[in-house]
């Protein structure tokens, strides 16, 4: 017999060509991951702020927000995505509404679910921040004649954001990780592409290494950016420059 056939799937564990090829394919998913994170975090932060303020306001609103947070924090995100993507379409009223072109798309369903989910966690973080604002600071601002939005903009929110930022950075990292669930409703972000490559080649370890390092890199850059933001927001903690 001659030389053994070269076409047998005799792959080595660390095959540089396969790794670079996988990396190139996965890189195509990075924009979608970032996009999902950015849109849902921005919209979620907006909702969370409103809810945190509502929670501190009069009673029916506070009860509504408490119930919302209880439900969204007590159930898995994947179930929430499924409810929006598969569940809502059961009703003819929804299928006939003007929102249906959006709710039919997995992209918007994923963004909606991620937004509603992060808003629940975020509102609790912001509430913690708001509660940490010293009463004296608010009293002093009132003495100066500030009230309403001005008081929030100048005194309460800056102090609350400073306090809430470390906890919120954890939530941001969790959101980057959560976008991977969008792959289950067919979106081809990093995890979606990773799944496609794994089920094609059955080389889970290599694909995992590539996709994992991409997520790690994104999260590393994110934590660096937040640390810089924290430094900028807390001038009182900086050392005096001689």
């Amino acid at each position, binding site marked *: 017999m001659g030389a053994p056939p070269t076409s047998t799937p005799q792959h080595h564990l660390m095959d540089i060509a396969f790794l670079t090829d996988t990396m190139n394919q996965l890189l195509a998913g990075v924009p979608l991951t970032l996009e999902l994170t950015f849109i849902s975090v921005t919209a979620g932060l907006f909702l969370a702020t409103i809810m945190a303020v509502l929670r501190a306001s009069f009673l029916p609103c506070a009860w509504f927000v408490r119930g919302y947070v209880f439900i969204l924090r007590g159930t898995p995100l994947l179930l929430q995505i499924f409810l929006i993507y598969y*569940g809502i379409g059961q009703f003819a009223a929804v299928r006939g509404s003007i929102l249906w072109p959006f709710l039919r798309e997995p992209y918007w369903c994923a963004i909606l679910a991620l937004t509603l989910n992060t808003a629940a966690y975020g509102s609790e973080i912001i509430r913690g921040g708001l509660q940490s604002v010293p009463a004296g600071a608010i009293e002093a601002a009132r003495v100066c004649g500030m009230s309403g939005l001005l008081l929030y903009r100048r005194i309460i929110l800056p102090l609350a954001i400073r306090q809430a930022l470390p906890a919120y950075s954890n939530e941001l990292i969790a959101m980057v990780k959560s976008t991977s669930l969008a792959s289950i409703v067919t979106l081809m972000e990093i*995890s979606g592409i990773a799944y496609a490559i794994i089920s094609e080649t059955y080389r889970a370890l290599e694909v995992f290494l590539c996709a*994992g390092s991409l997520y790690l890199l994104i999260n590393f850059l994110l934590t660096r950016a937040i640390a810089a933001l924290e430094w900028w927001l807390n001038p009182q903690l900086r050392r005096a420059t001689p």
Partner: protein
Amino acid sequence: MLASYLTLIGFGPQGWGWQLCLATLTTLAVSVAAYIVGLLFGTIGAWAKLSDLGFARGAADVYTTVVRGIPDLLVIYLFYFGGSQLLTSLAHALDQPGFWGLNPFTVGMLAVGIVSGAYQTEVLRGAYLAIPGGEIEAARAVGMSRLLMLRRIIAPRALRFALPGMGNVWQQVLKESALISVTGLTEILRQIHIGAGSTHLPFDFYITGFLLYLLLTSLSGICFRGAEFWTLKSERRPTLPLPRSGRGLGWGRRPPQRPSTT
């Protein structure tokens, strides 16, 4: 409307009640198994992070940083596909042809367990560091051996500080167990998905899923709060004996009476 919903999730011939009960038990079982694996990894990780050995600290740092920075879904894929990849090549090396794979329960238990172990590491490490140094010194001063000190002083004290964090990790494990449905394990989410597909009533089923998870998370929240209350026994303020004034209902909370010494 409500009546048809109740028949759907009820225990009748048309109902999905038994399947949903079984799925809930599966979720609970896989979560408990994963939590135990996580506790194991968390204990080892916390020990490594607190040890004097440089390589152990480094390895634990890499473990927590990596696992907390990548999506859990990828870890599940790694174990699901990678596990069968490894087992099949092992089996081929031992002249056992065919396809070998890990069963979904084991995959879920290991994957979610290892992910939660990274969070548990930080919880346990923080709890150990919260023990006042004087207590450990005192235990050493009375001549306790390391194992006795661990059992009598460190473990009970650390448990008290760790319990709130451990409760959070449990809630997280319970929710992450939903991801195991991608491996085909029939836990709540998978069963709900199957039911939604075969009855064409997705909304009813997904709402049921919400109810089941809320039931599990709130019940276990109550358990953990109870456990916290129990471990804080020594830190509670004593209930003050109420003065027996003629006012009030007369059967208010009173501490048990000391037996009279006559």
